[in-house]
């Protein structure tokens, strides 16, 4: 199992458009990825799940993936979260 702790750079957090980008990337990876904020964990390919975490700028989230391609999937998602899409 692979894990990453990432601080979200997007200045609007993960609310609408950045959340769509994030979940699309997660879905395309073909790997089961979860994202956790606080004590709630959701499916990273679920836009409703991701939005409902209420992730804000500077929040710390934990990404977890398992199986083949896990590291690559996490690399892509980590890079995405570290980009400010609203800048």
């Amino acid at each position, binding site marked *: 199992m692979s894990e990453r702790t990432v601080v979200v750079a997007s200045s609007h957090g993960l609310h*609408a*458009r950045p959340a*769509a980008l994030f979940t699309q990337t997660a879905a395309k990876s073909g790997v089961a990825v979860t994202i956790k904020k606080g004590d709630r964990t959701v499916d990273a390919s*679920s*836009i*409703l799940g991701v*939005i*409902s975490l209420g992730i804000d700028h500077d929040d710390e989230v934990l990404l977890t993936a398992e199986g083949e391609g896990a590291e690559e999937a996490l690399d892509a998602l980590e890079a995405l979260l570290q980009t400010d899409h609203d800048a």
Partner: protein
Amino acid sequence: MTTLTGIGVGRGVAVGPVRRMADPLPEPPTTSSTLGPDAEKERVTHALAATAEDILARAGKAGGKAGEVLEAQAMMVDDPTLRTDIDTRIDKGATAERAVYDAFAVFIEMLKGLGEYMQGRVSDLEDLSQRSIAKLLGVAPPAVPDSDEPFVLVARDLAPADTALLDITRVLAIITAEGSKSTHTAILAGEKGIPAVVGMPDAAGIADGATVIVDAGTGQVEVDPSADAVAAAEKRIAERATRAQTSGPGALADGTAVPLLANLGSAKGVEAAVEAGAEGVGLFRTEFLFLDSTSAPTVEAQKAAYSAVLAGFPGKKVVVRALDAGADKPLAFLNDAEEENPALGLRGIRSLRASEPILRDQLTALAQAQNENEADVWVMAPMIATVDETRYFTGLAKELGLKTAGVMIEVPAAALLADRILAVTDFASIGTNDLTQYTMAADRMLGSVASFQDPWHPAVLKLVGEIGTAGTALSKPVGVCGEAAADPKLAVVLVGLGVTTLSMSAPAIADVRDELARWTLAGARDAAQKALAAEDAAGARAAVDALDPA
């Protein structure tokens, strides 16, 4: 023929067929499915796919940022977590409708729990839930009607999301069951010059396709009118169309000048304002420059945007309002604190003062634009409550090179001390929408207290009178730039209370000009006294309606 009465917005008249915006769907019953889980799941698959397809088709049409937002909505309908939850509910015996309703409700509740800033997503999900259930039921979703023929829109109320999708060029008039003069629907109708009647509960009974005559001046709607009534209404529409072309400076019958100015939200409205005969701009809102950005725009970018408006009014007055953020228009870079009562929070001049560099940049950009254009630039601070704030803003504006600086009076405290406030600044402009909200302690965004939001209320007029009296005594100009100035009879009362200029959305100027021309200053003062003596807004209106001008 039936005549219904509501609250009229504007003075226009319209005749046309009704297109109803469907009411929200009833909550699906919790009865058990008779079709079985497999059939119900199959129905869900079809309904969600069809809903996503509709949204993607709209996304394609909209393009750009709006298209991206719609694409994200399509993803929400197609969400794997949502689908798992729906299937679990169906496995437990729920119907497809109820399962979809409950599964969306879980997310809606979760987002509501995250606070006010998720309100937009909550509305999106409510809309998606309704659309999906409408597909399951095979009925039209409660959305804005799409018609190639011009129509009269009848709805319970309109949300900003509805009006964003509305092709306004096809809307002859708007009738809503709920709402007041200050709600979103009324303000939109005023800006676009569309006759509207709001707050008319009987609107619920008007049938789709019925012909109606809408008279915004009287607030009356005639359903299934006679051919004679239609002909008479069409004649009035034609007369208004020719009269609206007349122009000239605003004045009372005795020659007292009352400059009529336009409210502008960006450079886009300049042409319409000039065409309507505006003698300048009484309220240039600058929020448009800031609302879509995550940080304040540069001095250079601001200067260009201000110049675009100033260039349209050489030799004329343009009153620019400094950034008015907070309450209904939050800006993260000015104030990102969660507030229980944003209307009573860090907004207007309070938030500008807390972020002085942003205010300094704006005033600097404005002073540069002033120096490069021929318009007479006045600047004013929003939401002034104290003499100290007035002194601070006026001093800063002058320091940065602006020639004329004043304040907006929207807070009763500032109205009551208008003599002391006007003593340390150049002018005042009254924002009647907020002044009414604060005087009546009634949230202007809240439908349940909409009946309080009426600038005709004698308590509001009394405060306006305080400001007018102070302005007269100190020979300082006092303007009104709220919706009240667009109500022709109320405009007369405001002038009678000592207001010297009126600023409104451009389409309202012609009617106000006509009404002012019927009254002398003495007549307007008499009307003001009659309105002040009433015990409520309706009484004030009736007292002025009963007067014979001249």
